[in-house]
């Protein structure tokens, strides 16, 4: 199995340098294309079946019309990836969701607000914030100002 989310779980301890992570949607698209290259008759319906979801749902996800939740990533990811990479995919998706919120005018630097607005558990917000700070994708400049990018 190809490693979509190469060992970046160690950002907390720094055991290894975090590597660029691919988002789960792109990972699905790549996997679908890979299967189609192997078998040109391989259909979206077959891929959806392999992932345990409906083809319309998968189509919407691949086209970016449907949000990926941790639940969806866990369900689909468990059929494609080792557990560590599924966890990594969830973190990557949560990081993206938080960065979307940070860019909004109404953003509030409050983990509970983020959790509610992004629809992700508070613990997952904490983990994603840690990741974003570590990778320099978010900086906390003052008590009220969080901005994308390095300080």
């Amino acid at each position, binding site marked *: 199995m190809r490693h979509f989310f190469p060992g970046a*779980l160690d950002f907390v*301890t*720094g*055991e290894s340098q975090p590597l660029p992570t691919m988002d789960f949607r792109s990972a699905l698209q790549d996997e679908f294309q890979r299967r189609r290259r192997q078998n040109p008759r391989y259909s979206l319906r077959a891929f959806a079946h392999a992932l345990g979801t409906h083809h319309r749902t998968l189509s919407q996800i691949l086209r970016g019309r449907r949000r990926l939740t941790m639940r969806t990533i866990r369900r689909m990811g468990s059929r494609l990836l080792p557990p560590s990479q599924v966890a990594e995919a969830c973190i990557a998706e949560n990081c993206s969701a938080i960065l979307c919120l940070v860019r909004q005018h109404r953003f509030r630097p*409050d*983990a509970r607000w983020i959790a509610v607005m992004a629809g992700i558990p508070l613990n997952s917000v904490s*983990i994603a914030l840690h990741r974003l700070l570590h990778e320099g994708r978010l900086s*906390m400049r003052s008590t009220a100002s969080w901005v994308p990018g390095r300080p």
Partner: protein
Amino acid sequence: MSRPVVRWQIVSPDPNATVRFYRRLFQWETDRANALGYREVPAAEGGMAGGVWPGPEQSQPFVQLFVSVPDLGQHVSRATELGAKVLVPPSVLPDGDTMAVLLDPLRMPFGICTLRDR
């Protein structure tokens, strides 16, 4: 001048289980009434305050110590000169504390912080 350790932190892949265990063992209470939802453990008499922070599912739990310094940026620079790596750059937390997390040359993570006056 010697800088003091002022906080400890347990980073756990299952913070609820961690909190539950230490509450039952040591009667530690946690307070999450802060902007990061951080599980703060107030200092018991003769001890120091700490907290529990969630780590990724696949990670191993560990303890991190935070050393108080008057100038965070200066100490981060000094630490990197001495061979440390920055894991989390200096960040101003919503409650006013400033902290950074580094990896010492022996690859042990530790934090430095400037706590706001309370």
